[in-house]
């Protein structure tokens, strides 16, 4: 069961699962692209994805996620492009729920927001753990750069 469904009542889970589309995605494919609002809410059924934030041309790998991870939730919720990218590291089995359908179900069942908050909280923790573990050497930036 994916991380969103874990906190949902069985009735809502059932309703959402009616709209699920299954897909197999090859390795190296972007499931979530930075700057592009996703068309679907995605959950990983099998395989692994790398979640990264790009800083200029340099991708910074935040985490590797596997079965149960939900992708695109934040972006769909606020209708804004995502700050992260998710790229398949191997062939992945995914389920997708079209964005508009998910938003309709959310509107009908706003109690879903509690489960949504749990997923967003987990994403925030991942980002903050990355910040905590970011090597001091990299944070301890050079000071010889000119300020003129």
């Amino acid at each position, binding site marked *: 069961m994916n991380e969103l469904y874990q906190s949902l009542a069985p009735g809502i889970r059932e309703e959402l699962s009616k709209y699920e589309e299954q897909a197999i995605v090859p390795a190296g494919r972007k499931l979530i692209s930075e700057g592009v609002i996703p068309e679907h809410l995605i959950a990983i059924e099998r395989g692994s994805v790398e979640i990264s934030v790009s800083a200029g041309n340099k991708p910074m790998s935040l985490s590797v996620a596997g079965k149960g991870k939900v992708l695109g939730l934040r972006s769909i919720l606020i209708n804004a492009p995502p700050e992260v990218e998710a790229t398949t590291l191997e062939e992945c089995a995914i389920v997708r729920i079209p964005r508009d359908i998910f938003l309709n179900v959310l509107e009908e069942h706003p109690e879903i927001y509690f489960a949504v908050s749990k997923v967003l909280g987990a994403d925030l923790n991942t980002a903050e753990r990355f910040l905590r573990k970011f090597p001091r050497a990299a944070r301890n*930036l050079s000071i010889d750069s000119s300020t003129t």
Partner: protein
Amino acid sequence: MSPAYDFQIVQNCLKCPFKEERLFCGLPNDLLKTLQEIKTTAVYPRGALLFLEGQPSRGVFVLCTGRAKLSTTSADGKTIILRIAEPGEVLGLTSVIAGTPYEATLETLEPTQANFISQADFIHFVDQHSEVGMKVAHQLTHNCKCAYDEIRSLGLSNSVPEKIAKLLLRWSARPLAIPQKKSSEIAIRVTLTQEEIAQFVGTSRETVSRVLGDFKKKGWLRIRGATWFIANKAALEKLAT
């Protein structure tokens, strides 16, 4: 007798003058009434620790007035400031929702009013009222964005001067309206010490001091106690890009 703090303590959320403009507090009156029943209000001096990293979560704090820093300890034992929390933010959210220990330490940067809601009351409040759940989700999307921006900024910044310039520019988005400033200047209130700025950008206090001294020498910045005057925003922007 003069008040101990230079702000009005708001005991009643229903009468809070800021409730509409704050992400979490802009709730309908019936929900604000419930919030009023489950929260306790307290005022803290600068330097008060509201929760500690690793401590079992016991509830959330809603910052009403004042700012606080969220910090953590890096793998090599150094303090890193994750971000500065502003009035209206709900703090301790992720830990309380997940039922896990606090992930960071929350310390006030100035005299602060905060409302505390216990874990059980907060979970019940969110669970029973979808509108509150919606507010919480939106607060978390905002927090995620801040964290991703910070990560991006770490990856993009090449030098301490650049990081400090970015920090000053971020603060300049909330300028102070004070008479002492020259018309071309932007006045900001800085409650972080140089040591804390160092913890924010990941360097030493001595380096922060040196960089600020350099900015002052170039005429980009004036410092008068906790009030700083950005005299050349364009130069800071050029450095930061």
